């Protein structure tokens, strides 16, 4: 029986290439992840603490941007060709955006990793949020710009395919998977304007020395204008797989096509005007704007809860089709041997927990308790690190046979791999959340302050660190198993029917959905209006306060204690005799700083 690679061989090559880049990024990012986990828990230190930030930046960029988005573009290309039942309009355009994205990723990665080699005059230790006034080498920003433009070209490619399909099917409903791709890309086009303006108009000229200063609050706000929708850009491929593939793997059918469309439309409308909830502690943004962002954020719970209901109902339907009965016994009838099903189910479960911890992040008052603590990485390792990443890995076990014509090398290894990921993440994210509640900071190689003990409600700091390290090691082992299984699958011989790739019709078909749901132009206009309402006044206020280019010069990226010592010495030297009598003698401070340098 013909599968995707037989029907669309050119598109299958692009999807395979996209997945290959994604998995290379996953491997490198995971290696850096386990090194960080062992370093900051002080269990094994093989790098210098100064290099920690280089690895942290590479970990964030390679996993949160390169792995997820390359998988997304591969998956969406598969979904567009499959659901429109036609090849891409021009395969040269498809290869062009793949090439641009790959080149941009390589530029950014080279700029970051060069920071590990002091002889190379290049670094980008700015973390994946690249907040100014931390400054990276221009190649980093140029690479990011190329990457974003590549995704725009990919979106244009998919909309051209839609236009071709629509001209031949003027009265048909948009196929569900294509609808999901197109709505996600509308959200992406609207939201990436923010980061594009920030990078192209401010950060690239600033890093090239064409302008001397930058407005940190403006570039941060433009980043988060994009930074929260990017969360949904990661999540939407997972949702696509949960809605359309998971019910099939469970042995059933999607519960409701109209409900799925409503969810994706809600994400188009609600995901962008909420970014300020990442800036609750930023001075310069009025509390009222933050309150509005919080309210908008809480509305986002609605599509998430609709998804939980629809997906669980679809999976239960599948279990009952397989003979499952009772209130809970049907769970035993699900295909737990299938790593694709099990991985996606575990990812969905973890997403529920991540959603609850996300509500703490989103609550304006309670956010102050955990802001910039280890709680935050604990949260996003549950969401993007598991709901998204584990779904993508699990989905690979079903997609790769369609793309290559080869069966999965080992399903038991696949099953062990997805379970290992889930258990590893339980240990790591649980400990991160607990550590965050105690105030342990994020984004630092040295979380243990001098002469300060964190008081734990349960257990000890050492136990929390042990859990983080154990979790990190299990996660790394899981990635090793995954990459081995994928590479071994690629090396297999082709077979006639590598996988059953049919997706059954939903129980509630698209004919039951109001026609207005397919009116993409209408949702785009409403999304833009909501963004204008949410961002015009805050941005005007920020620009009025500090100007378009701000007053902040670049902060040195290369970490050195010497300037701190010089500044401290000059500060103490200028302090009045009355004040200096109340603090330690200057000589003592200088000695201590010299000790830190050593």
């Amino acid at each position: 029986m013909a599968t995707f690679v037989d029907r669309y061989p050119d598109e299958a090559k692009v999807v395979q290439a996209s997945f290959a880049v994604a998995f290379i990024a996953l491997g490198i990012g995971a290696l850096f992840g386990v090194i960080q986990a062992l370093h900051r828990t002080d269990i094994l230190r093989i790098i210098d603490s100064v290099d920690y930030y280089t690895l942290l930046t590479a970990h964030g960029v390679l996993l949160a941007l390169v792995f997820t988005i390359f998988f997304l573009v591969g998956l969406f290309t598969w979904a567009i060709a499959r659901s429109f039942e036609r090849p891409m309009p021009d395969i040269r355009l498809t290869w062009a955006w793949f090439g641009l994205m790959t080149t941009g990723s390589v530029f950014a990665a080279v700029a970051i990793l060069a920071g590990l080699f002091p002889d190379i005059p290049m670094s980008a230790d700015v973390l994946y949020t690249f907040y100014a006034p931390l400054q990276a080498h221009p190649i980093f920003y140029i690479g990011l710009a190329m990457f974003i433009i590549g995704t725009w070209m990919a979106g244009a490619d998919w909309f051209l395919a839609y236009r071709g399909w629509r001209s031949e099917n003027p009265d048909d409903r948009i196929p569900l998977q294509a609808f999901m791709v197109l709505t996600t890309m509308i959200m992406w086009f609207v939201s990436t304007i923010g980061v594009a303006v920030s990078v192209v108009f401010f950060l690239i000229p600033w890093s090239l020395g064409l302008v001397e200063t930058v407005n940190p609050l403006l570039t941060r706000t433009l980043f988060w204008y994009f930074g929260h929708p990017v969360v949904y850009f990661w999540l939407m491929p997972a949702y696509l797989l949960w809605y359309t593939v998971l019910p099939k793997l469970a042995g059933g059918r999607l519960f409701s096509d109209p409900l799925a469309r409503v969810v994706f439309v809600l994400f188009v409308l609600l995901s962008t005007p909420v970014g300020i909830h990442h800036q609750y502690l930023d001075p310069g943004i009025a509390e009222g704007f933050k309150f509005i962002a919080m309210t908008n954020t809480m509305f986002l719970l609605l599509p998430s809860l609709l998804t939980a209901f629809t997906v669980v109902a679809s999976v239960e339907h599948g279990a009952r089709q397989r003979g499952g009965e009772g209130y809970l016994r049907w769970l035993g009838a699900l295909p737990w041997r299938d790593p694709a099903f099990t991985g996606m189910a575990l990812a969905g479960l973890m997403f529920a927990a991540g959603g609850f911890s996300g509500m703490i992040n989103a609550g304006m008052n309670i956010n102050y308790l955990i802001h910039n603590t280890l709680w935050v990485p604990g949260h996003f390792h549950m969401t993007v690190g598991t709901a998204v990443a584990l779904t993508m890995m699990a989905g690979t076990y079903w997609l790769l046979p369609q793309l290559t014509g080869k069966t999965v090398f080992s399903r038991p290894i696949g099953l062990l791999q997805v379970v290992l990921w889930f258990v590893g993440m339980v240990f790591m994210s649980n400990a991160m959340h607990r550590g965050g509640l105690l105030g342990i900071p994020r984004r630092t190689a040295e979380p243990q302050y001098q002469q300060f003990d964190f008081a734990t409600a349960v257990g000890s700091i050492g136990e929390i660190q042990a859990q983080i390290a154990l979790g990190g090691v299990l996660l790394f082992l899981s990635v090793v198993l995954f990459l081995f299984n994928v590479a071994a699958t690629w090396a297999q011989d082709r077979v006639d029917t590598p996988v059953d790739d049919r997706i059954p019709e939903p129980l509630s078909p698209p004919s039951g959905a109001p026609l207005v749901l397919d009116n993409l132009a209408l949702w785009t206009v409403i999304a833009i209006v909501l963004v204008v309402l949410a961002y015009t006044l805050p941005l005007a206020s920020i620009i009025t306060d500090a100007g378009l280019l701000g007053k902040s010069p670049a902060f040195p990226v290369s970490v050195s204690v010497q300037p701190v010592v010089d500044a401290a010495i000059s500060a103490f030297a200028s302090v009045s005799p009355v004040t200096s009598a109340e603090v330690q003698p200057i000589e003592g401070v200088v000695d201590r700083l010299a000790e830190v340098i050593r």
Partner: protein
Amino acid sequence: MRRMSSALFLVLVAFTVPIAVELRTVAGFFGVELPFIAVIIVELLLLAVITAVYVLGRITPDDDEPSPL
């Protein structure tokens, strides 16, 4: 008596690990500080109980099962 596959058991382990870890944290909120070994004991207990219920018991009677009355 139902048979439990090794895959289902593996997934059961995955489901119960977070419950065991969090139960200890919840106990701590109520002033009951359990040692870390308690997580392992709770995990084993949870696995034993759920496996026994699944293999031996039935949570609801089947529709075609005759009424005991």
